[in-house]
């Protein structure tokens, strides 16, 4: 149940990030006809990367030191990049050359940032809610 909750959370934020990056890329590349299948491709990309991220989240939360956390983020980013480059080649989103790979690395970084900020915002709001309740509780118990 907990994994499902984490997965749904990541799936919504990551897919939103991919849609955003796709929208920007399509706006920048003029004269490109968007096939109907791109919607399924976006959902599949979101699904695969969210599954991997949800598994990774359980490793992330067990990490206690900053160095290990940075290492985990780098490994996770590299893994996401490999997955997205592979899917990008399969879906014909990019040419398998330096330019195509760099563009995909930037796109993954943007999605990563969007997902990270959205998740941090959710946790921050959750902490704020707990702090308000905690303050009330501690006042009552003084």
């Amino acid at each position, binding site marked *: 149940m*907990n994994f499902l909750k984490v997965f749904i959370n990541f799936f919504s934020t990551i897919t939103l990030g991919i849609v955003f990056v796709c929208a920007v890329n399509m706006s920048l590349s003029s004269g490109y006809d968007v096939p109907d299948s791109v919607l399924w491709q976006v959902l599949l990309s979101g699904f695969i990367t969210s599954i991997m991220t949800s598994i990774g*989240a359980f490793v*992330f*939360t067990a*990490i*206690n030191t900053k160095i290990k*956390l940075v290492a985990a983020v780098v490994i996770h980013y590299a893994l996401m990049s490999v997955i997205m480059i592979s899917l990008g080649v399969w879906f014909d989103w990019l040419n398998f050359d330096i330019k195509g790979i760099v563009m995909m690395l930037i796109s993954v970084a943007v999605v990563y940032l969007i997902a990270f900020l959205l*998740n*941090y915002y959710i*946790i*921050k709001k*959750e*902490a704020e*809610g*707990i*702090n308000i*309740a*905690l303050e009330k*509780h*501690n006042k009552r*118990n003084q």
Partner: protein
Amino acid sequence: MKITIEALADGAEEEIIIRTNTMDSDIINLIYAVKAGRNRITAFYENEIVQLDSKEVYYFESVDNKVYACCEKKVFEIKQKLYELEEIYKQTNFVRISKSMIVNISKVSKIVPMFNGRLEGVLCNGEKVIITRQYVANLKKKLGI
């Protein structure tokens, strides 16, 4: 439920009598709350046996199969298991926040979000404790969220 309070003569022993038709969970929780409120914890500190007031305890922590009661500055070893303490103090300010820790929420000054998705509790003495995501719901329930 009728509550009767009788004033006692000086020196007489205090007593609580519960008259009930059914021993339901509310009554059991009430008994736990009374016992936990009054009970002092037998603890060990530098080869001495001491009696601790549960209100002084910031958190209970299990490390290498030993359980410690951490107060503002001192750490005491206690003989109860963490799950026993969780049961005894479940109707009080104590709440489980990870597999190895039960914290006294009246000693938590604030909750801080961390970048890896976890929450961190900052205690009144400046110490920081990790709240595992699995137990966040526990904490929220205790605070009535």
